[in-house]
């Protein structure tokens, strides 16, 4: 508890259908990341209810929330968040390992994913030896390896130049086309406009929600 209570979010009433492509925009500090964290079960609201896939997940235990995160949510971050000492393949393998999948199957699925994201010849490279675009592709491969229902991307192109950013966006949109719900936080109006539903935030509240 800080000295002063901050309402990072308030009065949020939001329903996102499975398979939607939603962008969330708003000034810095408006609560976009916080909303994404609540959706991804990384953060718990102090009050209110959250249902995911028809199930109330607000009061799940920490272990169960971790499980839901693993199975239903994929996170993509602006700063990639790859484990620096692991190779691209090992980074992609992490969620499979956490899920307790056997090594042989893990290897097959990692190979497939690396192939799908055009990273096969980078499999044994560490993050430091990869370009920004390659890093973000590894991160997306990791986020999607367990086929989550929702992909939560927090400024995924924020650290990439325009061309590479566009490539990464094409990948994410490709995943949306295969049925994954895509929720994209961005400052970029152009990118935000590509989504099929646009949510605008200010001071922790949703001020606009248009399709």
């Amino acid at each position, binding site marked *: 508890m800080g000295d002063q209570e901050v309402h990072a979010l308030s009065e949020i009433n939001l329903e996102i259908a499975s398979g939607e492509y939603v962008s969330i925009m708003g000034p810095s500090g408006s609560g976009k990341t916080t909303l994404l964290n609540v959706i*991804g079960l990384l953060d718990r609201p102090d009050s209110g209810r959250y249902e995911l896939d028809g199930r109330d997940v607000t009061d799940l235990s920490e272990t169960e929330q971790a*499980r839901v995160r*693993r199975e239903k949510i994929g*996170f993509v*971050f602006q700063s990639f*968040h790859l484990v620096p*000492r692991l190779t691209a393949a090992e980074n992609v393998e992490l969620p499979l*390992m956490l*899920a307790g999948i056997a090594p042989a199957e893990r290897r097959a699925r990692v190979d497939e994913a690396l192939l799908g994201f055009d990273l096969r010849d980078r499999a044994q490279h560490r993050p430091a030896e990869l370009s920004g675009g390659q890093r973000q592709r590894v991160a997306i491969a990791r986020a999607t390896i367990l086929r989550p229902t929702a992909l939560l991307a927090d400024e995924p192109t924020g650290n990439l130049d325009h061309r590479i950013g566009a490539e990464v966006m094409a990948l994410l949109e490709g995943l949306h086309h295969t049925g994954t719900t895509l929720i994209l936080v961005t400052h970029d109006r152009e990118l935000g406009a590509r989504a099929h539903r646009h949510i605008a935030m200010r001071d922790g509240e949703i001020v606009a929600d248009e399709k």
Partner: protein
Amino acid sequence: MKLRDTLHLSLHTVASYRTRSLLIVLAIALGVAAVLVLTALGDGARRYVVGKFSSIGTNLIVVLPGRAETAGGFPGAVLAQTPRDLTLEDARFLGYLPQVKRYAPLNIGVAELVAASRLREVTVLGSTADLLPIRHMNLAQGSFLAQGAEHSAQMVLGAKLAQEFFPHGNVIGQRVRLGDRRFLVSGVLTTQGESMGFNSDELVIIPIDYAQALFNTSSLFRILVEARSRSDITSAKEAIRDILKRRHDGEDDITVITQDAVLATFDRILRALTLGVAGIATISLAVAGILVMNVMLVAVSQRTSEIGLLKAIGAPSADIRLLFFAEALWLSLAGAVIGFTLGQFGSLLIRLAYPQLPAWPPTWASIAGVTIAFVTGILASLLPAARAARLDPVKALGGK
């Protein structure tokens, strides 16, 4: 997460942070090695002393005149008002006891030895034939004092004296003079070195009668008694005390020391000493534990964003705790193995440098050292692991 994967991933991490891991492993290894080497030294010293003491005889009982105790009642008043002498007669009576296998009366003094136109003062031991087996002495040449021939003027020379007086060999049968009497050299002792205060290499041994005549005394310095078996020692001690009391008009004026009791005392003291140094060495392991804890706490704060990421991709707190725990386990394992090897190697070096010292680390110390290394490592990882598991993923990810 499967245990196998947890172990594998944590090993990977440990191997990646090379300097940090080496530092921790070294700290633990030095602690374990210290336990092994110090206890090897302590136990080696114990075995050395006990071995030396055992080598002077088996089931040995030493009888000496006078009471080595103060009288009760008057503090400081010693009861030893001229104790009755121990005599050859006394010794002979001890020989009749059923618990006694053999005995040897002992007189000691200093006299001038003259032979082959050389002269020097030597320590003279007067005794009988049984001294040889009782004291576990060995002959290099010739024969010892003959059994029952206490009246023949024979002499046995210590190894160094034989070498000094007769450097060209041919010692046996030589005539020598000790004080004002002539002797024939009948034997030479093997080199034995210092034991219990005497150097038997610079000793001459003559029959007890001659010694008593030479030193003009009828009282004995000591009587060495060998009990028939270990279990006879206590009753032999009682019987000796009893018989000598009767012979000394009811005065309990002798002291009986058993080698067993002295050995046990030494053994106890040196064991306690070994335990003490083991305890001190264990402190270095505890210090290593504190180092491990600090380094791991730093590691947790360095890897904050990684921990947040793991949580974001679905690792429950328990998995994260286990990951850090497993890292400590690997580090302790490496530290214990390297420390054990170092300790064994160190003990070997000590044994090479001091061949008389049987400096082997005792089994209990090896087990204790390795166990304490593990316990320390695991205890030291509890707090860092818990801290990592408790990290709020939102904050952890935010602090990129």
